[in-house]
């Protein structure tokens, strides 16, 4: 058997696991590992400029490929810098393996230089973690880490590796395990057949059905089954922020996103539904509005791979624990065999009602934003959709620009939309775009951002230079922490406490130049399209579009809170449902 040091075993295990990229940043406790990386030819290390960006890049890679993203950081500050990105991945159930260097075993607990209890600090935001005690365990721990991260409800796994364990001084027989078994871990696969039968029966009896599908459909690669089911039944579909793309955004059966900034038709249809089929969605508080007022007349079927997600905030009438792909396939089979079909008249009336809502206040039937002469953020996203043919992989940061992108860039395929939904992490967009670009070298990758968010990981422009990542950055520059400002308008009588920068923004064009990129400033509506075209014509460059948009714009619809139901919304600054 081959004899390898701990550090070499770690990197070889990654190679044998099929890992192509590791996003990381070196430091003292990780140096043996970095030496092993230097000597390994298969695993490519990507040097970011901040460990937070390493985790977001790995996360972006994971969201686009479905495979675990891999991160390597040193102990202490390297590990703590990674925490925000681990929490981001955890909240959105993204598979990730984070390897952190640790001080030598015998120094743990002595407040050694750059010692942080990484297993302790990360505990509430990981699916699982390992502290390596013995180099011989490394291959098995790596195998287990990937298995745990990628199966069931995915999530981040931390492997904390004390420096002595990776020492080149000692070697061990190396073999990468072919299989793992963990006696306490059996991710759900097939759903309960009896429950699935009941669900199909209830679906067939529905008169006002809505399919509410979430990020689980993307993560569980069940977009095909979702589409088939929706087509077969001709039921309306709404997606959560995390589920966008799982059902085509341009489809007639699609009601748009639901929730806080969901469409009028999606939220209103949910409110009046008699049967809701929730698939891989978790009834997040940004979706349900006040739980006590949530969809009063609806019977709820809830399919999720995580039993703890079911009946957590909203009681399910028919809970089904299983992989969404497997459960939907079984439902499709039952439907194919069934002689019954939904009540045609009821469904026609329901669609009539929905079309009426859509016609009255639909987001896309007319421009929901008023003309002020300034560039509107919504029309930037519409233009972006046009110029990219609706085909780009879009990452976003967090704020108004994120919601406008979710509303106006009609995602037609899963894994096309990459955003931090659960944690809402500003700074996510650019590094996630880098990860996405590594995953899909030939695709156009775009990061939609705000002048606030972009400054939280702007150092990554340098990483883009080093690895020739031609991502396009569309900055909706409203010269404000727009989403904060919006809330201050709505709830604090326009007292803009610390949401304005007072003329302190950098000159982004010059900044781009300094990094070796291209910056284009747009202030005139008339130039918007042509400048965007100019941007996307520069295939192999990073281009930063600094687009000055109307600062006063709010994101609408916006559900009324607190104490509102799904259907209670502001539709503009003056209209309320």
């Amino acid at each position, binding site marked *: 058997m081959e004899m390898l040091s701990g550090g070499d075993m770690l990197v070889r295990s990654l190679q044998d696991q099929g890992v192509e990229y590791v996003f990381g940043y070196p430091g003292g406790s990780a140096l043996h590992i970095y030496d092993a990386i230097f000597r390994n030819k298969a695993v490519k290390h990507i040097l970011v400029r901040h460990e937070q960006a390493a985790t977001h890049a790995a996360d972006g890679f994971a969201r686009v490929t479905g495979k675990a993203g891999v991160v390597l950081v040193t102990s202490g500050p390297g590990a703590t810098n990674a925490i925000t990105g681990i929490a981001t991945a955890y909240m959105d159930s993204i598979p990730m393996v984070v390897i952190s260097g640790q001080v030598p075993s015998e120094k743990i607990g002595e407040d050694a230089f750059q010692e942080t209890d990484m*297993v302790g600090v990360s505990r509430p935001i990981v699916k699982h973690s390992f502290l390596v005690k013995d180099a011989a365990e490394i291959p098995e721990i790596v195998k287990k880490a990937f298995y745990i991260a990628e199966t069931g409800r995915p999530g981040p796994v931390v492997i904390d590796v004390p420096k002595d364990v990776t020492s080149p001084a000692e070697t061990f027989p190396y073999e990468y395990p072919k299989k793992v078994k963990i006696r*306490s871990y059996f991710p759900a696969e097939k759903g309960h057949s009896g429950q699935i039968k009941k669900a199909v029966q209830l679906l067939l009896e529905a008169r006002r059905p809505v399919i509410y599908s979430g990020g689980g459909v993307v993560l569980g690669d069940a977009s095909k089954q979702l589409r088939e089911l929706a087509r077969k039944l001709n039921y309306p579909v709404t997606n959560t922020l995390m589920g966008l793309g799982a059902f085509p955004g341009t489809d007639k059966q699609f009601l748009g996103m639901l929730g806080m900034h969901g469409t009028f038709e999606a939220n209103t249809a949910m409110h009046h539904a008699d049967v809701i089929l929730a698939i891989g969605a978790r009834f997040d508080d940004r979706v349900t509005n006040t739980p006590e007022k949530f969809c009063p007349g609806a019977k709820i079927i809830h399919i999720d791979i995580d039993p*703890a997600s079911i009946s957590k905030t909203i009681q399910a009438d028919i809970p089904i624990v299983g992989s969404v792909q497997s459960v939907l396939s079984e439902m499709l089979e039952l439907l194919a065999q069934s002689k019954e079909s939904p009540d045609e008249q009821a469904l026609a009336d329901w669609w009539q009602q929905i079309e009426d809502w859509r016609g009255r206040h639909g987001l896309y039937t007319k421009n929901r934003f008023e003309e002020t002469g300034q560039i509107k953020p919504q029309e930037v996203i519409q233009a972006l959709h046009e110029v990219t043919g609706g085909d780009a992989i879009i990452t976003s940061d967090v704020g108004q620009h994120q919601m406008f992108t979710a509303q106006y860039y009609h995602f037609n395929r899963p894994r096309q939309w990459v955003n931090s939904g659960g944690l809402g992490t500003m700074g996510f967009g650019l590094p996630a775009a880098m990860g996405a670009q590594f995953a899909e070298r030939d695709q156009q990758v775009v990061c939609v951002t705000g002048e606030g968010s972009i400054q939280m990981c702007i150092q990554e422009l340098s990483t883009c230079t080093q690895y020739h990542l031609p991502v396009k950055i569309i900055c909706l520059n409203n010269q404000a922490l727009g989403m904060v400002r919006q809330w201050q308008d709505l709830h604090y009588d326009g007292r803009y406490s610390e949401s304005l920068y007072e003329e302190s923004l950098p000159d982004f064009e010059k900044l781009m130049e300094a990094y070796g990129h291209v910056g284009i400033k747009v202030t005139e509506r008339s130039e918007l399209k042509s400048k965007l075209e100019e941007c996307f014509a520069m295939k192999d460059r990073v281009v930063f579009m600094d687009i000055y948009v109307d600062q006063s714009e709010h994101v609408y619809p916006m559900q009324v809170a607190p104490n509102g139901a799904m259907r209670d919304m502001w539709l503009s600054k003056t209209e309320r449902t």
Partner: protein
Amino acid sequence: MSEKQSKRIISLLMENAPGALSRVVGLFSQRGYNIETLNVAPTDDASLSRLTLTTIGSEHNIEQITKNLNKLIDVVKLVDLTEGSHIERELMLVKVKATGALREEVKRCVDIFRGQIVDVTSTVYTIQIVGASDKLDAFVQAVSDAQILEVVRSGVSGIARGEKVLSL
């Protein structure tokens, strides 16, 4: 959700490994739930620990907690003993100042509660009592005339009645 609160005894088997206990306890502290009693020791299989804890919560809270405990990779099996008939035991050691007439009275109390005096000095009794938690509470109440110097309780451990077992 303002549901009725009740006391639960949750018993689980987990990997006898560092970090496992902190993950279990972390689930409670993260949600602001209190663990009333906690008791952990290895089982006949040294790779497994049996952990028993009592907590107070609503039906909904307890369901969430048990689902999340089950999700922990280190937790192998779990049972909410309060859902079926079960045996609940706790061990208590009490040090009581016992002089003069009180000496006899305390002794009588210990007998009534089927406890044992496991250590004696001229002024102090150390008493051991085993039973369900409310019996231990009752004993402490009963000897409250004497001066209680120290109370140590093991926390509840429990087991289901009949054929039901919690094992691999």
